[in-house]
């Protein structure tokens, strides 16, 4: 486990060196700029829109980091031929895959935490500027802890997406890995359409294939509770636990497959 930990820390350091965390500056500028602009553009609803924008941006920025860093985690080592010196060290191949994955998840966790902190700061400023009278008309308070539920599920979703990217990165080129990962993310977010495919086609075979894909592909739609929490709709602990457990199992399956493929790869 120590080897995995060291690899993970190195991946995190590398992402800092690669200026991945610069996206946080962009996020802060986006939120601060939007909070000013939205005040000019809309007749009220600024806090709701900032919450929507903040949560969507955390998810979108995280998605780009998970995909574009994830697809290069293993393939970059192979491309640069640094894989030989790595494998010469006393580490197993599976530890390399696990460490790389854990490092990127750590990067995402830090990234997400800072973004959520910035979102709360902007919301706090808005609440302070608008005053308690305006706050009475809001569906939920500006500094609503319920937002954290949406962020938590976004994190689990990003962990699944990272696992998908790492999985493809063990046997494919970066460009193809990016295409496959984005394809699966989009398909995963339309999972309800796959489930109900039998309502739009007459063919039983097509409906069966769609149904099989529904169970096989990652189901990412349930991770989107952003709209619910912004409107203050309760999300039960049971739901959060089930969706998180699904993500954990799916991630484990992908990582095991990735480790298996990587351990059998011939680098000669």
């Amino acid at each position, binding site marked *: 486990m120590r080897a995995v930990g060291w690899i993970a820390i190195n991946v995190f350091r590398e992402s800092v060196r690669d200026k991945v965390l610069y996206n946080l500056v962009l996020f802060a500028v986006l939120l601060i700029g939007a909070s000013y602009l939205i005040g000019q553009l*809309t007749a009220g609803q600024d806090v709701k829109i900032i919450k929507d924008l903040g949560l969507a941006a955390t998810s979108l920025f995280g998605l780009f980091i998970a995909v574009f860093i994830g697809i290069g985690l293993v393939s970059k080592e192979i491309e640069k031929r640094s894989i030989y010196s790595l494998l010469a060290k006393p580490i197993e191949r599976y530890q390399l895959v696990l460490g790389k994955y854990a490092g990127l998840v750590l990067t995402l966790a830090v990234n997400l935490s800072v973004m959520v902190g910035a979102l709360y700061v902007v919301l706090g400023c808005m609440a302070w500027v608008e005053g308690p009278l305006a706050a009475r008309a809001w569906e939920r308070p500006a500094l609503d802890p319920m937002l954290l539920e949406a962020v938590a599920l976004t994190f689990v979703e990003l962990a699944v997406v990272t696992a998908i990217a790492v999985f493809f990165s063990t046997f494919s080129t970066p460009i193809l890995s990016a295409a496959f990962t984005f394809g699966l993310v989009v398909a995963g977010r339309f999972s309800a359409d796959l489930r109900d495919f039998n309502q739009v086609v007459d063919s039983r075979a097509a409906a069966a294939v769609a149904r099989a894909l529904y169970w096989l592909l990652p189901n990412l739609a349930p991770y989107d509770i952003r709209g619910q929490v912004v409107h203050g709709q309760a999300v039960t602990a049971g739901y959060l636990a089930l969706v998180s457990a699904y993500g954990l199992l799916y991630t484990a399956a992908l990582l095991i497959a990735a480790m298996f493929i990587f351990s059998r790869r011939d680098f000669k």
Partner: protein
Amino acid sequence: MLRHGLPPTVVLITIVAVLLGAAAGLQRVREQRYPPPLITDEAPYIISGQAVRRMAIGYSALAADIYWIRAIQYYGGAKLQLANRLSADGGAQGALPDYQPLYPLLDLTTTLDPRFNIAYRFGAIFLAEPFPGGAGRPDHAIALLEKGLGERPDKWEYMQDIGFVHYWWRHDYRAAAEWFDRASQVPGAPWFLRSLAATTLAEGGDRQSSRIMWASIRESAEIDWLRNEADRRLLQLGAMDEIDELQKAVDRVAGESGSPPNDWQSVFRASSVPVDPSRTPYELEDGRVRLSQKSGLFPLPEEPRRMGSRVP
């Protein structure tokens, strides 16, 4: 360092700045010689909410916000354009904005975010209001509110708003009373809905009921526009009360003198002229008291009528 002594970074930044400045200058010249066409078609490109929801790939709440901003911007822009045009040439030149895109924009907003409360309530007021204040489509207002009720069947505010559209714009007091009654049965609904339902069913419209409804809208308004509209309507109701009082005084003078007065001096025997709540003097002509067309409260709404005196 280059031969002339300037650091390469400064030279590079200068070159980039000069090139960008030159490009902006060229764009300016091009726009002066070949002015870009004005975008006059405000209709949304896609009117299927489901299609937009799919294209949003999980970010439909954000897409709803964008359509909400567009709806607000469209309504504000159209209203301003109309006010300018109507005051400048009476709307004689060219086509006037007709608020037709407002319903599809609000429909898209509420499909993308079915709990976007303010979009339903905004639609209830400004879709139903007649042109030039709104789209003049109470049917669209009701359709939007019923869509909201489909998502939140316990939302008594939407039921009250549907009843309000029937009451204020359609003068269908029976339908209004039904909706007020339905709203009053929802747990947490305010007490006045029950008496409003009874009054509307028994007597039809009256000013007091109208006042209660606008005050309720004002109380629960989440945005300034709705609050301002409710304030304006409440002032109009106040002006209607004042006109009634003034008319009584004018009728009394007309009865005593035998001819209808044409100026306020002959009514009040003083130099003061009565003004409406927007501080514009009331007009008096042939014994009839009227709100001035210059008043910010003009035109007054059609008076809610009692059921027995309904004009066929």
